[in-house]
């Protein structure tokens, strides 16, 4: 199977840049576990895919090298940060691709590009050799043309890894096996906090259509509440940037990557290297993370955010007592235009409002196509599941996909 890889996974002997000037010439001496597993299973690695620098962004406009366009409308963004991965699958440049998801970076671009994207449970897929952004949130997963391919790729990617102490030591079921078992009696939770003002009418209509279709297939719907949803973006931008500021401290010009030696000693070299190597969004997040971890602010910001994170997680624990999966829109809107949100970081951050809670809680989530806007842009449906229960997500997704048939539509390029 010809597969392309987000340029955040280390590939032995093949340049791995994370779309950053910092790593423009970095050639890893080892394979990430995900790439190794794919190779061992016979996959052909076609190449590496564009992304927001260090996976920080929601439009792939933060790549240090070039922009990626949405195959459905080249004046629109493909989403991000795995924008290259989603666009490549939508455009038919590869059979499938691999992305990473820290706050929606697999699901949101999959939604914008009309393909399937799966973020597994935190720990289900090894993070070894996956360049770190926010270590407690990052998770790799497949981006594919349909649900069956996602299940097959997860079969290969999932599993415990001695090289990642946070990978979960649990057996990997055959995710492709139960796909056709249907959704009769499956309880689908509809959280009221996700159907709010600001949700695009066409998106809402398409998602409601999917709910009706799943009901017609025998599923039951139940209203659920995730009351701390409104705090998720705030929690995320404190937790993720704090972890990022620590993770990105390694780019110091000493062992690998860019070095800018301005003859001002070691400290001068650090500063010059990081100034030249990092783009604006990466610097902004390092600044925010460093601020919230610094003396005097830690309790008010990082610690508080970590506590509210617990409440976000508990919301899901409660909701999953009443339902088997939760159904929401993936993003409040379809793909936005290139340049539309570049000037205002906060507006860009808010486009991740429906995908972020999933990472904070560590649960699995996926996006699949559920229709198109009047302008022909894809709309994505998000399914969230219990920890380690990717199988139920995939079964519900497959049932809907086979009835709806959106996955057969391809962009006219």
């Amino acid at each position, binding site marked *: 199977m010809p597969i392309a890889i987000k340029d955040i996974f280390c590939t032995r002997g093949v340049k791995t840049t994370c779309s950053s000037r910092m790593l423009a010439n970095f050639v890893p001496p080892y394979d990430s576990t995900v790439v190794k597993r794919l190779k061992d299973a016979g996959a052909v690695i076609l190449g590496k895919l564009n992304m927001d620098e260090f996976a920080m962004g929601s439009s792939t406009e933060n790549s240090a090298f070039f922009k990626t366009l949405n195959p459905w409308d080249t004046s629109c963004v493909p989403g991000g940060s795995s924008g290259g991965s989603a666009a490549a699958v939508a455009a038919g440049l590869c059979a499938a691709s691999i992305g990473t998801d820290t706050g929606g970076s697999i699901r949101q671009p999959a939604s914008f590009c009309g393909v399937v994207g799966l973020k597994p449970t935190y720990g289900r897929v090894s993070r070894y050799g996956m360049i770190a952004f926010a270590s407690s949130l990052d998770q790799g997963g497949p981006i594919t043309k349909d649900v069956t391919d996602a299940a097959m790729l997860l079969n290969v990617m999932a599993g415990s890894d*001695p090289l990642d102490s*946070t990978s979960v030591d649990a057996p990997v079921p055959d995710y492709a096996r139960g796909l056709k078992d249907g959704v009769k009696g499956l309880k689908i939770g509809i959280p009221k906090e996700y159907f709010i003002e600001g949700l695009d009418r066409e998106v809402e209509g398409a998602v409601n259509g999917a709910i009706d279709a799943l009901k017609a297939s025998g599923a039951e719907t139940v209203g659920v509440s995730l009351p701390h949803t409104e705090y998720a973006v*705030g929690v995320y931008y404190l937790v993720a940037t704090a972890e990022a500021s620590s993770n990105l401290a390694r780019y110091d010009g000493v062992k690998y990557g860019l070095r800018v030696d301005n003859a001002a000693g070691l*400290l001068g070299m650090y500063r010059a290297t990081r100034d030249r190597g990092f783009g604006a969004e990466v610097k902004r997040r390092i600044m925010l993370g460093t601020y919230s971890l610094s003396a005097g602010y830690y309790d008010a910001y990082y610690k508080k955010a970590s506590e509210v994170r617990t409440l976000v997680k508990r919301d899901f624990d409660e909701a999953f007592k009443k339902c088997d999966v939760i159904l929401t829109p993936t993003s409040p809107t379809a793909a936005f235009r290139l340049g539309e949100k570049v000037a205002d970081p906060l507006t860009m951050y808010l486009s991740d409002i429906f995908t972020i809670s999933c990472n904070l809680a560590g649960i699995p989530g996926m996006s699949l196509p559920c229709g198109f806007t009047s302008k022909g842009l894809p709309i994505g449906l998000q399914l969230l599941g219990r920890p380690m229960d990717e199988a139920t997500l995939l079964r519900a997704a497959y049932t809907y996909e086979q009835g709806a048939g959106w996955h057969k539509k391809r962009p006219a390029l």
Partner: protein
Amino acid sequence: MPITKKDVEHVAELARLALTEEEKELYTGQLQRILDYVETLSGVNTRGVPPTTYTVPERKAVRADTVIGSIPQEDALSNAPEKAKGCFRVPRIIE
């Protein structure tokens, strides 16, 4: 909390970032907006709520102390910006 240019300079120093005057002005405004937004968290009652730092219930923090293969020295140095005698070379730090 209001952010000043001085705060931004202090944080940049901690983060080993060299910012231009223009960047300092830009980040002062942008960080202020983001921090105003996250201020909503301060209204959430978290008394008695433990923080979540990882969502995996059990971590394999301890493993058997067995020797496994490691990256050979030559490979480990293959991306070094500057190297000498099998080591990473850095600017002088001791006078």
